[in-house]
C-alpha cells in the first residue's frame, strides 16, 4: 500500500510539473545561457547541458512531452486495439478470423521493431513516434479485449439479452463495455507503462527527428556523450523514466484502479 501511495505521489508530482512546466521553470529550456556542462549551483539545480541550457528546465518540459506523447500513443492503442478486439468478439465469423490472423502476424514482430518499421516508413517525427508506439501495441491489447469480451458473451445475462432480441450495438454498450471496463482499465495502465518505455526508447534512438526536443529519452541520448564528465545529465532522465514506469506498474498491477 505504501508503494502504491508513493507511486501515486510521484505521478501526481510529475503531472503537476508537466502541466505547470512553463511557469515553474526558472530558465527558458531552449536558450543557451550558461557554460557548457556548467555544474549545479544556485538557480541551476541540475547544471547545464553540453549546449549550456538549463537541464532542470529541459527535464520539466520533458515531463510534459513524455507524458503527452505516451498519453496519445496509449490512446491510439486503446482505440485501435479496443475497437478491433470488441468488434472481433461480437461480429465473429470470418471477420474474427481475419482480425486474429492480422494480430498474430503483427505480434510475431517484436513491438519495438514494429515501431521502428513504422518510423522508417513515415520518416522520423513526433507524430510517427506516437503512431508507431500506439499501433505497435494495438494487436496485443486487441487480443486482451477480445478475450474479455468473449468471456462476457458467455455470461448468462448477456445470453439473456440476446434471447430477448437485443441487437449487437445495444448489448455492447449496455453489457460488454461497462462490465469489461475494470479489467481493461487495469490493462490500460500496464499498456501506458509499456508505451512510456517505448516512446522514450524511440526518442532515445533519435527517431523524434528534431534533437532539440527535450523528451526524456532524447535527453538521455544526448547526455550519453558526457557520461564521464557529467553523469548527472544521464542519471536524471534515466531515473525519471524508471520511476515513472515503476509507478504506473505499481498502480496498474493486481487490483483494478478505482
Amino acid at each position, binding site marked *: 500500500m505504501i508503494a502504491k501511495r508513493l507511486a501515486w505521489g510521484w505521478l501526481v508530482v510529475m503531472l503537476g510539473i508537466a502541466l505547470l512546466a512553463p511557469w515553474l521553470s526558472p530558465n527558458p529550456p*531552449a*536558450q*543557451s545561457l550558461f557554460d*557548457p*556542462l556548467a555544474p549545479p549551483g544556485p538557480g541551476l539545480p541540475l547544471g547545464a547541458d*553540453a*549546449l*549550456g541550457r538549463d537541464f532542470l528546465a529541459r527535464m520539466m518540459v520533458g515531463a510534459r512531452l513524455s507524458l503527452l506523447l505516451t498519453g496519445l500513443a496509449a490512446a491510439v492503442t486503446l482505440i485501435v486495439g479496443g475497437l478491433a478486439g470488441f468488434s472481433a468478439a461480437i461480429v465473429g465469423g470470418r471477420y474474427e478470423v481475419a482480425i486474429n490472423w492480422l494480430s498474430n502476424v503483427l505480434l510475431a514482430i517484436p513491438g519495438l521493431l514494429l515501431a521502428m518499421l513504422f518510423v522508417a516508413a513515415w520518416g*522520423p517525427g513526433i507524430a510517427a513516434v506516437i503512431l508507431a508506439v500506439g499501433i505497435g501495441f494495438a494487436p496485443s491489447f486487441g487480443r486482451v479485449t477480445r478475450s474479455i469480451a468473449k468471456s462476457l458473451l458467455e455470461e448468462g445475462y448477456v445470453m439473456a439479452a440476446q434471447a430477448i432480441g437485443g441487437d449487437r450495438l445495444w448489448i455492447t454498450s449496455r453489457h460488454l463495455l461497462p462490465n469489461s471496463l475494470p479489467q481493461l482499465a487495469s490493462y490500460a495502465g500496464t499498456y501506458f507503462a509499456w508505451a512510456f518505455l517505448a516512446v522514450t526508447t524511440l526518442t532515445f534512438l*533519435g527517431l523524434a*527527428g*528534431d*534533437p*532539440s526536443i527535450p523528451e526524456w529519452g532524447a535527453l538521455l541520448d544526448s547526455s*550519453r*556523450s*558526457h*557520461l*564521464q*564528465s557529467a553523469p548527472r545529465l544521464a542519471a536524471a532522465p534515466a531515473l525519471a523514466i524508471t520511476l515513472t514506469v515503476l509507478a504506473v506498474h505499481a498502480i496498474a498491477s493486481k487490483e483494478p484502479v478505482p
Partner: protein
Amino acid sequence: MQFPKRRGAWRLGLACAPFLLGLVAACASDPSPGRELSYGLTLAPTGIDPHINASVELGIPLSSVYDTLVFQDPDTGAYVPGLATDWSISADGLTYSFVLREQVVFHDGTRFDADAVKANIDYVLDPDHRSQKAAAMLGPLHEVEVLGSYEVAFHLDRPYAPMLDSLSQVYLGMASPSALETWGPAEYQFHQVGTGPFRFIEYLPNDRLVLERNPDYAWAPEIYRRDAPAIDRITFRFFEDPATRALALEGGQVDIIGELPHLEADRLAESSEFKVDPVLIPGQPLQLIFNTERTPTDDPRVRRALVLGVDRSRIVDTVFGGYSAAAVGPLSASTFGFAADPAFPPYDPEVAAELLEQAGWALSDGGGPRRMGDAELQLGLVVPPWGSNPEVGQLVAAAWEQLGAEVTLTVAPGFGPLNEARAQGEYSAIGMNSFGTDPDLLRPFYDSEGFFNWSGFRDPELDALLEEAAAAFDSPDRREALYKEFAEQVRDQWLILPVRDYVNLVGSSQRVEGLRFSPQGWFPYLNDLELQP
C-alpha cells in the same frame, strides 16, 4: 572479441623488442618489424573509390595508397614533384605537360607510365562511372595526350587555375590501369592498387580497412620526412558516434582518431598519455544555406535578420570550445582567396528585429510567432548529422525563435535524406559545405547550375565572376581580388549563415610520432608515422 588477444600477443612481442631491435639494428637499417597501428575513422562512407566517390573520409587511408602527379607542400603551398618529376604550363594556360618518374611500379607489379596516366583520367571522365568529385576537379580538361613513354600533356578547353591543386589530391591519385580494368567501377573500391607507401589489403564496409607497408616504396616526394613507412600495418575502424571516440582512444582500441568532441579533447589534452592536434580544414565553413526561392527567406531583409539574430561566436564557443574560430564568409580563414574584410557582421538582435519589422513580420500581441497578415513566420531548418551540425542547428533554431520565428529543426540522417529534403524544397535553410584547398570549390554551390546550388540563387554576374576567377591561372593576386569581390556579393545577398571554420581535433596516443597532415587538413601523411615502444 579477437582484439585483446592480438594486442596481448603484440605486447609479448614488445617485451622482446629490445632483443629484436638489437638484432635488426645489427643487420639492417630497416625499421623494427611488426609495428601495427590502429586509426579511428569517424564516418563510414558509402563508397571509397576516390576516383568515383566524394567522401573526405576515404582520403584518410587512401592518400597513402596512391601517389599523385604533384604534391602540395603543407608549409609553403608550393607544388612539388610526385609521380611527375617536372611540368610546364603553356602561356595560354591550355596545356599542362608532365615528365613522369621512371622505375615506379604499382603494388600489383604494373609499371607506371604515360599510358597509366591516360587510363586513370579516362576512367575518371567516363560518364558511365559517374564520378562525384574527381571528374569535376578536372574542370575543362578534354584530353590527355601521351607524348612518349614517360611524357603526357593535359589539354584544356579553357584556362583552369585549380589544375595542379586537383592533381595533387587523392581523388586523382594514380591507380594501376590493369586493376581498374580487371575490377571495373563497381568492384574496384575493394581492390585498390596504387603506387603509394601503403598497399590496400582489405576493406569490409562499416567494419575495417587494412593497409600494409609497400616494401618497394622508393619514390617518396620531398614533403614526406621519411623515405619509406615505419609502420607495417594500419587498421582503420569506424567510430561514427562521437561519444565513442575518446573512449576508443583511451581504451587502446585506436592510436589515432579524428573529430573528437571538444570537451573530450580538453580532457585528453590534460592527460600525459594522449595529445590533441587541432588541424585547420580549408574550404567552406560549417554553414547554413538560405533558400532564396521560398518565403520568408526569399526576402534578403529576412535573411540578413536571420544572420544578425544569431550569436555565432557564442555558438562556436559553446559547441566547439576554444578550438574553432567563428566563420565570417563563404571561405574559411585558412583557404586561399579568403578575405577578412567583407565579413558577415556580428550578433545584433536589435537590428535583426527591426529588419523583420521592415520586411512586414510584426510581433503578434498574444505572444506566438511574428505574423504578416495571416501568415506566421515559420522557418524550416534541415541539417546533416555529421560535424556537430545538429548541435549548431539547435542553437541557431533557438536564436531564431528568440527573434519571433517558429522553427522546425530536422536532422537528416545522411547525405541521401539531406539531398531528398533539398529536392522537396521545403526548407528555409539547409546545412552543407565542402572542403578543399582551391576556392573553385565554391562554384558548385553558387553557380546558377551548380549541383550544390541549394540557395536557388541565380545571377549571371556571379557565375561570370566565378568563371573568371577559375580561369585566372597565371595571377594568384587577380584570383584573390575576384574571390574577395565574390565574398562581398554573397554577404550583400545574405545567401548563407557562416558559422564555424572547421578544425579537426585529432587525438593520438603519445606513442605516435610524426603525425602531419596534407594541406587539405583531413589527410595524414601515414608514411611519416612512427610508433614509440
